[in-house]
């Protein structure tokens, strides 16, 4: 259902070409738990932006749910992000002035869901991550681990095809990080497709398949037993 075909991404710093991805090919099946690993500069952030439909590849194809995205419009891309992709960031990226419930509602707003249904779906998503009781708090009133749970609820709320998590434990202590990773494991066992981007081997170990990137190419692509 996700197909990456010979994908290249080159950035231009003035006249200097900086290749970030130099031909990457792989597929992701429904229900997989995939980790993308590599040191900084390996191209994993670029790959995650492309998989998240935040950017267009310079060359190659990207198929998601039967749709190729390298030639579709900005607004169609926004729609795909909204409906097919759930993001979880290292920095949490919650909207600081709004409550937790409203944060989780944001993707539903852009989807055009009415207020009552929005409230209900957002509450359900928050209950799934164990935060059903803190709906009216603002992000600055809760802990880092709780923030990341809110972000996961927000990623889940539109029932996306994949959940993309970029270093989701990077800003958390190891115990809280473990709890977050367990949530991902749970979600995966419920059928959600999860792509975890990280540079830490121990974290990648939670996944059932690991792709290792080095200098914009795939170094290893193996299933963890």
């Amino acid at each position: 259902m996700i197909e990456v075909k010979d994908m290249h991404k080159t950035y231009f710093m003035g006249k200097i070409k900086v290749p970030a991805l130099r031909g990457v090919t792989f597929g992701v099946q429904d229900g997989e738990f995939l980790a993308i690993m590599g040191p900084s500069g390996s191209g994993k952030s670029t790959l995650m932006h492309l998989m998240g439909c935040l950017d267009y590849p310079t060359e190659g194809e990207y198929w998601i749910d039967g749709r190729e995205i390298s030639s579709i419009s900005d607004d169609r891309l926004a729609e795909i992000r909204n409906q097919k992709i759930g993001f979880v960031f290292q920095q949490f990226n919650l909207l600081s002035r709004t409550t937790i419930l409203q944060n989780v509602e944001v993707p539903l707003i852009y989807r055009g869901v009415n207020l009552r249904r929005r409230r209900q779906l957002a509450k359900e998503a928050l209950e799934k991550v164990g935060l059903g009781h803190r709906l009216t708090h603002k992000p600055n009133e809760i802990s880092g681990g709780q923030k990341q749970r809110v972000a996961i609820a927000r990623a889940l709320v539109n029932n996306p095809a994949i959940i993309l998590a970029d270093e989701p434990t990077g800003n958390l202590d190891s115990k809280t990080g473990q709890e977050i990773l367990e949530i991902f494991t749970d979600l995966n066992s419920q059928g959600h497709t999860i792509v975890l981007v990280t540079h830490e081997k121990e974290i990648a170990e939670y996944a059932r398949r690991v792709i290792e990137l080095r200098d914009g190419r795939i170094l290893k692509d193996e299933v963890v037993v």
Partner: protein
Amino acid sequence: MILETLRIALRSMTSNKLRTFLSMLGIIIGVAAVIAIVSIGTGARGEVTSQIANLGSNTININPGIQRGEGGRISRPYTDIFTLELGENILNYSPAVKALVPVGQGSALLISGSTNIRATVVGTGPDYQAINDYYPELGRFLQHEDLQQNSNVVILGSEVADDLFGSGDPLGRKVRLSYGNRTHIFTVFGVMEEKSMGLGGNFNAQVYIPITTYMQKVANTRYVDSYTAQAGSSEEAKIAVGQIEYFLTKSLDGSDKFRLTSQDQIIEVIDQVTNTLNIMLGGIAGISLLVGGIGIMNIMLVSVTERTREIGIRKALGAKRRHIMRQFLIEALSLGGIGGVIGIFFGRLGAVGIARFGGWAPVVSVVSVLLALGFALLVGLFFGIYPAYKASRLDPVKALSYE
């Protein structure tokens, strides 16, 4: 969706109240100026129009022209041209003139018992009443017989009557009128109604005597000071001005010996003054609105920069360009709208204050309020477009990594 966006906009505005207020200041001043201008314009015009109407309707004043000073002579108005006969001839040869009265006036001392006051003595005829829309409250006004007989009849203005006789009945009382070095005894035959002070001066502080008496006994002259003519309508007044001009130019051999002032001309001059004032104040309002708009644009650009990351997050979560655009436009519109409402409040306050000062009723019309609010919203919209567009075009990857 719109409601949601409005809530987001309000939240972001209230998160920095001082900054929001400062950026709205231009709009506030602009809108307040619009409201105040329209109110002052309407109020002042109404006031002036009512003062003009007070002069009597469709009147034309005929005054002597100004003589050029030559050799040892000082420039001053001609005093030896306007006779009673000339006045009658103007009336006879100008069909559009319905009525005409001669006016001669001077300052005299009025004495009754031990009280004396200085007042303007106006020598005139019976038509003075209709022309000035000014009638006696007690007794009667001057009559033709008074003029024919050079009678010593005096009609008092209301203030003069008060000053001389207080609450007593002035009718039939004798008044001594001292003019120059001679004194005459006059009998009071009437007291005029009170007339509000207008452009014609204070009628209430004058006394009225037959023009013939004034010329022959009091001022000892063969000439009157001016004529007041009246036409049947404002259209006829224009025709009358032409006819009088033609007749006087012919009979006086030149147009520099008289001056005509019609109400139309007065209204025109006042309109010009009001227009100039309106253009000036309108300019101030326009500039403040422009500055206000730039203020809004400035703060919106700052806001877009500050919230780059938020825009990135929203885009990642599926916001399309139009969603982002709408969010910032609504914010700019809210700035304009709220600034407009505050401006209307201050504008009203200003209008009421100035109206009190100017002595007319404050008029804040719905039209001017809607106009001002419309302008404020328009300015907000117009100056919000660029920042909103800029926000909507942000690259999500760059926006997300913005610190």
